[in-house]
């Protein structure tokens, strides 16, 4: 039984990954090569598609916008969600339950519902078609699970460690800065990377808020150029691969044994 289940598992994983593997290889092929023999071995591999993308101003804007917006979103969300998650995990205070409920309610307020009050409020504030607006929308999108992850991570730190600091006369702020934060640094890095990825690949808010090329992110660009048949398949695949790039550090992070240890709750 073991042989057949492991074979089925390998086959299933291969089938699932095959389209993405095809995409990555196609990004390094010319258009003629792809159309002549889509699923066969490539005739030759080249970086020409990426060079051609870099000559398109919209792409250069797009990658700059995506980098800026994703970094800003990850920073804002980590800075707000992490401390809040810690405080809610350690203290009960008036409104703690309400805060937690509002944080989780963000899951129910999906883009489909929030996108158009956001555009309404943003137009009234004069922020439509701006990167700041996209950062705010992405922060709203990522906040619920960042808050949940942060609270979970904080609960994983034994309170005895903070008790020792209290005995030494540390204030709550000192406890956070000197005991909690250093222990949480890998999880915070993981949280930052996850939110970066979520913002990097987000399509719908960016699509609705960005009206001009200067503000568009890469997913919006790919959606516009692909849907309108304005880009040939080799360039579409190359652009898709650029969109897939942040997946690499996330995969490396989750493979790291240090992070797996932390996930199991060991801190040393």
């Amino acid at each position, binding site marked *: 039984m073991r042989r057949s289940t492991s074979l089925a598992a390998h086959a299933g994983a291969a089938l699932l990954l095959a389209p993405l593997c095809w995409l990555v290889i196609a990004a390094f092929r010319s258009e003629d090569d792809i159309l002549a023999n889509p699923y066969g071995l490539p005739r030759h591999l080249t970086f020409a598609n990426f060079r051609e993308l870099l000559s398109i101003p919209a792409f250069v804007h797009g990658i700059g916008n995506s980098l800026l917006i994703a970094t800003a979103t990850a920073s804002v969300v980590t800075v707000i969600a992490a401390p809040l998650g810690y405080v809610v995990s350690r203290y009960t205070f008036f409104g703690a339950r309400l805060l937690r409920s509002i944080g989780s309610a963000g899951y129910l307020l*999906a883009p489909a519902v929030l996108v158009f009050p956001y555009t309404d409020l943003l137009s009234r504030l004069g922020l439509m078609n701006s990167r700041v607006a996209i950062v705010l929308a992405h922060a709203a999108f990522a906040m619920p699970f960042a808050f949940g992850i942060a609270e979970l991570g904080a609960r994983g730190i034994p309170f005895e460690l903070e008790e020792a600091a209290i005995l030494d006369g540390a204030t709550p702020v000192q406890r956070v800065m000197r005991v909690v934060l250093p222990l949480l640094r890998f999880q915070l890095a993981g949280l930052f990377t996850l939110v970066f990825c979520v913002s990097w690949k987000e399509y719908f808010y960016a699509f609705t808020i960005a009206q001009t090329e200067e503000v568009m992110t890469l997913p919006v660009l790919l959606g516009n150029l692909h849907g309108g048949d304005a880009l040939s398949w080799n360039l579409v695949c190359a652009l898709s691969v650029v969109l897939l790039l942040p997946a690499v550090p996330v995969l490396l992070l989750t493979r790291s044994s240090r992070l797996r240890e932390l996930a199991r709750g060991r801190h040393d």
Partner: protein
Amino acid sequence: MGRLWVIVVIGAMALVALYVVPLADVVLLSTDQPDLGGARHFVAAANYRAFASANNAGPLVATVVFTLATVAAELLLALLAALLTHRQFPGVQLVRAALVIPYLASTVVIVVLWDFFSDPIAGALPGVLRRLGMHTPDLRGPGFALPAMVCVATYEAFPFAYLVILSRLFQIPASHYELASIFGGGAMATFRHVTWPQIRRALGTLLVLRLLITVMKIDVPWLVYASHAPSHWGDTFAVRVYRLAFESLQPGLAAAASVIFVAGITILYLSWLMMSSKDANV
């Protein structure tokens, strides 16, 4: 708490700004009729009456079909994959990592893949069907819109369900399985008596969460079909709200539809919460 209350205040302000203010804006907008100049005229429940009298059967059916089919497919596939990969075998770590990768891909990228693989000339799917001698449907046409959305949404969402079920399977003590094999249980009996009771609750919670998230999904229906559809056939409810707000420029009506949408989902969610806490008490 010392000076940490500053964190609470900042966090509370952020949450209020990001969720409470827009929600309040939608509720207020649902009772207004903005004109083209942007001025809002209070019309009380007129938008709700207009929404109730409009023909919403199409989007409702499309939403229910899309949601149920996607969630069923992703949970079944995730359960199968988790059962196949929670034991140790050579290469299992690689297989587990491979099964998670689609989660890191943008929706647009998966739609690009679907578009190429369903292309009538170059696509792998029509090619395989032709080789098998089967009739090749128009995979890009309206008849295949819902199945296409379900395929893309399942591919995108499957890794998350897989991770949740897999982590729950890891928590089942090995001694349970050893006992089952001592009593001579085969795979099906082991699943029914050992695995299923342990994962039932987690699966139930996962089912409800995925239903909530999928029913409101707009990027997949929009990208796969609605953004270039010749008609509004196949629009889900979320797409209909979007079109009301941004294409027909009826924000009041769109707001009323959003409020009904969120209220309906919240009621269903709270009912499920109440029912599951009753189960826990019994």
